[in-house]
């Protein structure tokens, strides 16, 4: 790891001010991606600004329209949270499948979203649930937030402070984990809104990162059942094709994971 200067922020405003002062600063949340990348010398921030101890950035709560998860809440805490479990149990299930137990004790929802790894789990939930990302500057709709591999709508220095999830009728997540890394070879999150609208998002599959899956959304809107997906055709165009799985394999995984997600949602 190259040399860096560590700062621990005690408020969001202080973190933003420290970022502005740094030459090439980076925010540090759980560090479960940033630190490995720094160790490989693929990132060399002049300053790292630790957000994890900012009290306003941690916790889950009910809101008038759903639930809110603060950005520095760890995967483990989300997986165990009673409010989240009552409102959207699929989110607890998703959080409990990220990485391994030690990683879940450190990694955070905000860090996962800001990084937007194409095989990360949370982007699928946020996109399928039509969540809203709150930052220190504005709110961003999920459909506008994810902009391709490791790319988001966040501006330089902008901090995700929380994610607002709306009430949903049904939601489920299923992933085929890579056997070594536990990242999703393909993961699919399905959600049915109270007005009957259906949103489906797949992670790990596309060359452009997390994506909506229109054909499965249409099939589930007409008939919310795993068998409704049987006749759907998923194009392999634009899907990842690597040593872990071909594009055709991933296209099929999208269907199979969507079916399992619907079964998990009930």
């Amino acid at each position, binding site marked *: 790891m190259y*040399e860096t200067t560590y700062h621990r922020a005690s408020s969001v405003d202080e973190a933003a001010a420290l970022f502005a002062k740094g030459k090439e600063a980076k925010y540090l949340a759980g560090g*479960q991606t940033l*630190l490995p990348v720094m160790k490989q010398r693929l990132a060399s921030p002049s300053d790292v600004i*630790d957000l994890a101890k900012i009290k306003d950035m941690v916790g889950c709560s009910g809101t008038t329209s759903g639930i809110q998860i603060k950005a520095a809440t760890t995967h483990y805490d989300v997986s165990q949270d009673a409010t989240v479990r009552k409102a959207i149990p699929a989110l607890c299930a998703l959080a409990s499948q990220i990485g*391994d137990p030690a990683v879940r004790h450190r990694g955070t929802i905000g860090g996962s979203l800001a990084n937007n790894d194409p095989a990360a789990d949370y982007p699928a939930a946020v996109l399928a649930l039509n969540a809203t990302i709150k930052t220190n500057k504005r709110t961003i709709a999920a459909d506008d937030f994810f902009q391709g591999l490791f790319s988001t709508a966040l501006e330089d220095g902008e901090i995700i402070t929380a994610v607002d999830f709306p009430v949903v009728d049904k939601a489920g997540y299923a992933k085929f984990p890579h056997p*070594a890394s536990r990242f999703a070879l393909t993961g699919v999150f399905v959600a049915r809104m109270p007005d009957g609208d259906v949103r489906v998002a797949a992670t790990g599959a596309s060359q452009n990162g997390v994506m909506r899956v229109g054909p499965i959304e249409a099939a589930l809107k007409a008939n919310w059942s795993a068998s409704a997906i049987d006749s759907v055709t998923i194009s392999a165009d634009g899907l990842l094709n690597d040593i872990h799985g071909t594009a055709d394999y991933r296209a099929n995984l999208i269907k199979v994971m969507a079916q399992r997600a619907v079964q998990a949602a009930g």
Partner: protein
Amino acid sequence: MSTVKLTVNGKAVSAEVEDRTLLVHLLRDHLNLTGTHVGCDTSQCGACVVHIDGQAVKSCTVLAAQAAGSSVTTIEGIAKGDELHPMQAAFRDNHGLQCGFCTPGMIMSAIDIVHRHSGQLDEATVRHELEGNICRCTGYHNIVKAVLDAAGRMKVAQAAE
């Protein structure tokens, strides 16, 4: 350089380290607590697992500075004098190790697993929960046996307290 102050195995410690220093290097190189191992150095293998404020973490993927103000427990801090921790004793009795390289991390993860499940564990849960700890010798069978054995011992020990 920064002065990092934290509690390690119940003792207040202070060390002058570079900001880029990882927690595992603070423990091993500055505090001479070499029971915590560096295996893969990529947060896969779990040989470096310690507890921060009671939670298992991979100390190769935490900056020492991030742990400032926290309470860290390493493999050196779990026995009571000459009396092994029930998890250590169960690993010995069940032959849960061969070369021993992964063992400190295994034991620290395993204690965390027992705590999180309030001692209610079955074999499938233990195997699943150990996914972040890699052992290249044992084939895991005796490790799983040891964890299940220790879960019972820890319950008895807790009831006795």
